[in-house]
């Protein structure tokens, strides 16, 4: 009990110090799915240019990992995930502002191979080829793209075969990096990630999945900067924000 109280007090002190350090007016912390990295950087720049004095701090990672940070007290204003499940969890924990959640883009799951690869892959069954010794798959417990991949493979009755060849990754961008470096023979990423490294990876095929991949965005209830958070969410949903997202290959929700 004593130890637990000390831990709590230390944590409280850290959170307080962090909150005090971050509480500048016009400063906004956005936790966003790793696949949004390039698009959100441009959107944030655009947003800062339109609203003088505003500063957007971007925190990218696997949606599940970002959720765990918030669940343990990270001060975040806006949350954007690559899946509905993680946002559902955040909603169940009361982290979101009720009714503030909106889907803002749609994405596609693809299998990519290194650009110099000679493998011919046309659908999931081709991943059983002996030439496919290693496949990058996001850890399904925290990385949405891994969960989508696992579900698609399970649907095709291939999960147990591919699981044995899977190299678990901590985010979709790590999978992308492994394929780009040629350290794995294939990997599951989103079409938008493949587009970021067109010179190093090529899309082998699109993976058909049952439920469309929709990204939700929401303001966090604990945000100390609600007005700014709402304005940023509105900007992402605005034609200007959508134009940037579509430039990076995201589809309309």
């Amino acid at each position: 009990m004593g130890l637990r109280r000390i831990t709590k007090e230390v944590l409280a002190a850290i959170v307080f110090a962090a909150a005090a350090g971050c509480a500048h007016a016009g400063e906004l912390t956005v936790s966003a799915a790793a696949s949004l990295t390039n698009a959100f950087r441009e959107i944030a720049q655009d947003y800062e240019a339109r609203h003088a004095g505003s500063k957007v701090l971007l925190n990218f990672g696997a949606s599940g990992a970002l959720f765990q940070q918030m669940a343990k007290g990270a001060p975040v204003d806006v949350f954007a995930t690559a899946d509905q499940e993680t946002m559902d969890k955040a909603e169940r924990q009361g982290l979101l502002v009720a009714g503030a959640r909106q889907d803002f883009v749609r994405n596609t799951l693809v299998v990519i191979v290194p650009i110099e690869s000679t493998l011919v892959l046309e659908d999931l069954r081709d991943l059983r080829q002996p030439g496919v010794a290693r496949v990058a798959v996001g850890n399904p417990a925290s990385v949405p793209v891994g969960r989508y991949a696992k579900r698609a493979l399970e649907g095709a009755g291939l999960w147990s075969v591919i699981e044995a060849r899977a190299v678990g990754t901590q985010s979709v961008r790590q999978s992308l990096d492994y394929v780009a470096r040629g350290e794995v023979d294939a990997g599951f990423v989103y079409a938008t990630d493949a587009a970021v490294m067109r010179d190093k990876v090529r899309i082998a095929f699109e993976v058909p999945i049952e439920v469309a991949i929709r990204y939700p965005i929401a303001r966090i209830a604990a945000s100390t900067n609600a007005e700014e958070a709402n304005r940023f969410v509105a900007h992402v949903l605005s034609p200007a924000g959508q134009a940037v997202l579509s430039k990076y290959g995201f589809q309309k929700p």
Partner: protein
Amino acid sequence: MDTAWTALALSLQVAGWATGINLVLGVAVGLLLARGRFPGRDLLDTVLTLPMVMPPTVLGYYLLVLIGRHGTLGAWLHETFGINLIFTLKGAVIAATVVSFPLVFKPARAAFEAVDGQLEQAARVLGLAEAAVFFRVTLPLAWRGILAGVLLAFARALGEFGATLMVAGSIPGKTQTLSVAVYEAVQAGQDDAANLLVLITSVVCIAVLLGAGRLAPGRIANRAG
């Protein structure tokens, strides 16, 4: 909970190999730096100490670039021997070895420098060959200082995370060591698994440190001078 014990076994395996390799290499390099007189000695010492101060991610990146499939050394190993180090336990051993290397050679160098040269000289006068002088006089005198470093290196190798994750990835049962398993469990919000893993890690580290203290009493303090 099997994951936890598998991870512990892998961690011990990685740390064991890394320590064994470092024991041989670290003692040799420590001796070379303590006794050798050659240009660039200080530079060599500095370069070999880098892993102690550089972020593990930087080391991980260097290793990826070096031993990855497209890396200078990695490409050659793959083509010549069909050896692939990335995402294997060997990769994890290499990462742990590099990271903990300074912890072995630094104390070894200090220990060799502290050995009284007159004792070695006496042995030579009494007719011992150079190799015998080393194994029967120098090494026994320097042994405790070396051992303290080796145990610290073992503990460091056991906890290695950054470079290991980049080079060996996180494959349960193959390359997922304790520290990587902790990271995964926390990311996924599996606090029960994380609690067990950190408990195991803490107990193992305490045991290693207690062992280090017992095997080399007073030595760590003396060596600092």
